[in-house]
């Protein structure tokens, strides 16, 4: 593998190692800080990564992603407030265990399960992504359009209650992507005569606004809430007895997390929830769940970290993000001038192996940081919000402005944040909008190309079995839950 050799050289470069180190520490800290998530951190870091070459830039983002997913468990265990949504399930048993005075044990279990989950998924990524990319050689515009539709349709299953709102969010993102001059016809769309909008709305300020400004305003609504943190002196590696008890849970969650991660749009949060539920279902002592069961920590933690590598499989192989953070990383690849897909594997093997190795390294580094710095991380949770969030806003401003050194992007960021806050209030999550925005160009261009190939006949899609399979999967993902509900209602009635 020629790329492997180059990647080994790249990964042993002290500069890149330093960036992975920074990304990992940053990720754990960001994950540990309530309100900050790896999605937000990668969005904030994205404009600055433009100053780096592609390999160090993506290695930095990828290591932040891995470590941030673990970092969320620190707050979940110590203050019963997950630092990020994927750690929500960890709080169910992590916090009760910490309340019993076993915070170090809980953190140790979370760290080891996360490392195993993360490592497993990176190995799957290493094998599955090139294979999937090879399949993509047979994809034309029709298949890419169908794939994008399938990716967007998966938004409906992120949360059962908000299925319609997630789909609307995804469409809203697609609509934002149409702003600017249409490259096919040269016609201005939604520019309102403003030259600043001719090139469209860059997704980075929208990302920063939707993730960070929206959260800043959400935090402003929680100023009166106080959190009580449980202290921890050291992270303890699980005892052999504990590990023996959770080994099958971890193995199961590795598979669940990686599979869920590979599905477009699904991410660590769903993986963790399913990982938790399955751990409970298979446990010999399900009654202990919710009271500090070791499987209740290992299950979701292995699953949410396994989803990180999994989510990058469709992102790198097909250009369809597997999660919100993967969408940000996809954006990072796009702004670096790289187009994910089979040609990326052919032309940039060093970049891809660089990503794999940086994620592997990040997984082991955060275990080390956890062992050494658990006490410090537990104190991080106590950083006053009044000092943290003005700093976050300053970073948002600098990130949005620094992109093109233009105030237009800062206004776009603010508008996205304000709109995002209102939308969040009415149950619309930011992630689907980001997905739609990132997939916007691919969706429109591939549809236009397909329609030209088919001579404007929609029936042309019928002759493309791969595209039709994706459409069928899209229909299934949208209608499976409502049909199941209807059937269950009928069954109950009879």
């Amino acid at each position, binding site marked *: 593998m020629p790329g492997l050799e180059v990647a080994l050289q790249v990964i042993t470069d002290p500069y890149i190692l330093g960036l992975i180190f920074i990304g990992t520490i940053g990720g754990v800290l960001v994950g540990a800080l309530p309100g900050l998530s790896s999605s937000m951190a990668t969005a904030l870091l994205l404009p600055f990564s433009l100053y780096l070459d592609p390999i160090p830039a993506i290695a930095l983002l990828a290591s932040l992603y891995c470590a941030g997913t673990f970092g969320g468990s620190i707050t979940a265990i110590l203050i019963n407030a997950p630092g990020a949504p994927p750690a929500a399930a960890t709080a169910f048993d992590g916090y009760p265990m910490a309340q019993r005075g076993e915070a170090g044990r809980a953190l140790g279990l979370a760290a080891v399960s996360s490392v195993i989950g993360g490592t497993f998924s990176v190995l799957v990524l290493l094998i599955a992504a090139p294979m999937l990319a090879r399949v993509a050689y047979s994809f034309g515009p029709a298949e890419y359009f169908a794939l994008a539709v399938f990716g967007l349709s998966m938004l409906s299953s992120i949360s059962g209650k908000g299925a319609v709102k997630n789909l609307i969010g995804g469409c809203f993102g697609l609509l934002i992507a149409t702003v600017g001059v249409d490259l096919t016809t040269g*016609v201005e769309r939604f520019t309102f005569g403003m030259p600043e909008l001719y090139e469209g709305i860059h997704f980075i300020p929208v990302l920063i606004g939707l993730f960070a400004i929206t959260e800043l305003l959400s935090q402003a609504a929680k100023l009166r809430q106080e959190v009580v943190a449980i202290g921890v002196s050291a992270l303890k590696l699980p005892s052999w007895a504990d590990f023996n008890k959770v080994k099958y849970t971890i193995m199961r969650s590795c598979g669940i997390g990686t599979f869920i991660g590979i599905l477009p749009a699904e991410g660590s949060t769903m993986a963790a929830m399913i990982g938790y539920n399955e751990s409970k279902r298979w446990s010999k002592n399900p009654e202990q769940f919710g009271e500090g069961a070791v499987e209740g920590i290992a299950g979701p933690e292995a699953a949410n970290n396994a989803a990180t590598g999994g989510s990058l499989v469709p992102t790198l192989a097909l250009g369809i993000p597997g999660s919100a953070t993967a969408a940000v990383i996809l954006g990072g690849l796009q702004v670096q001038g790289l187009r994910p897909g089979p040609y990326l594997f052919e032309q940039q093997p060093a970049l891809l192996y660089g990503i794999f190795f940086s994620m592997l390294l990040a997984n082991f580094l955060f275990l080390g940081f956890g062992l050494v710095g658990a006490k410090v991380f537990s104190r991080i949770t106590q950083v006053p919000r009044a000092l943290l969030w003005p700093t976050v806003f300053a970073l948002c401003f600098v990130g949005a402005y620094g992109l093109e050194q233009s105030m237009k992007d800062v206004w776009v960021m603010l508008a996205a944040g304000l709109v995002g806050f209102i939308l969040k209030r009415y149950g619309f999550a930011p992630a689907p909008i980001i997905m739609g925005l990132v997939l916007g160009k691919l969706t429109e261009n591939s549809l236009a190309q397909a329609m030209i190939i088919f001579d404007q006949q929609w029936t042309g899609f019928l002759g493309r079995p791969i595209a039709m399979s994706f459409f069928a999967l899209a229909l299934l993902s949208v209608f499976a839950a409502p049909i199941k509900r209807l059937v269950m209602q009928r069954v109950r009635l009879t």
Partner: protein
Amino acid sequence: MTNVSGVSARGLHHDVYVGLVLLIFCAVTFYITTTFDSVPAMLSQNIPATFFPRLILFVIAGLSVILIVSGLRRTPEKLGGIPGSVFLTAGVITLAIFLVKPLGTLLTVSLLSMTLTWLWGERSKTRIISLAIGLPAAIYLIFAIGLQVRFPAGVVLALFGAGG
């Protein structure tokens, strides 16, 4: 945001109103698409610039109808009010962005951090002043010097002939 879900309220579920707003949005946006310049079909290869935005608008409209119909079946929920701190924070950050050009980035960030930390309940003068000095200093060193980002200098620095 205090979403007091489950608390019943008079009237209809808020999803109904959200759906109606979305339908109005779709109608207005559809109207805007009618103002797009038209190009000959040959030039546009029979895929006019309005095609994709309108397709999305039809999908959003369809989904909005589903939202309204499902909202009509749901028990109304009372959404909690938005605390004043949210409006104040939004106002402060909007004002700060307005002030960047006249005052310059560094001074604005300093003023913003002081105002926001105070608004958010911090009363330690040492902490407030440390952040007000430390934050712009860090931005200057890392971004203006390190990454060569040219921030708006504003009138204050311009008086001294300096750039951000």
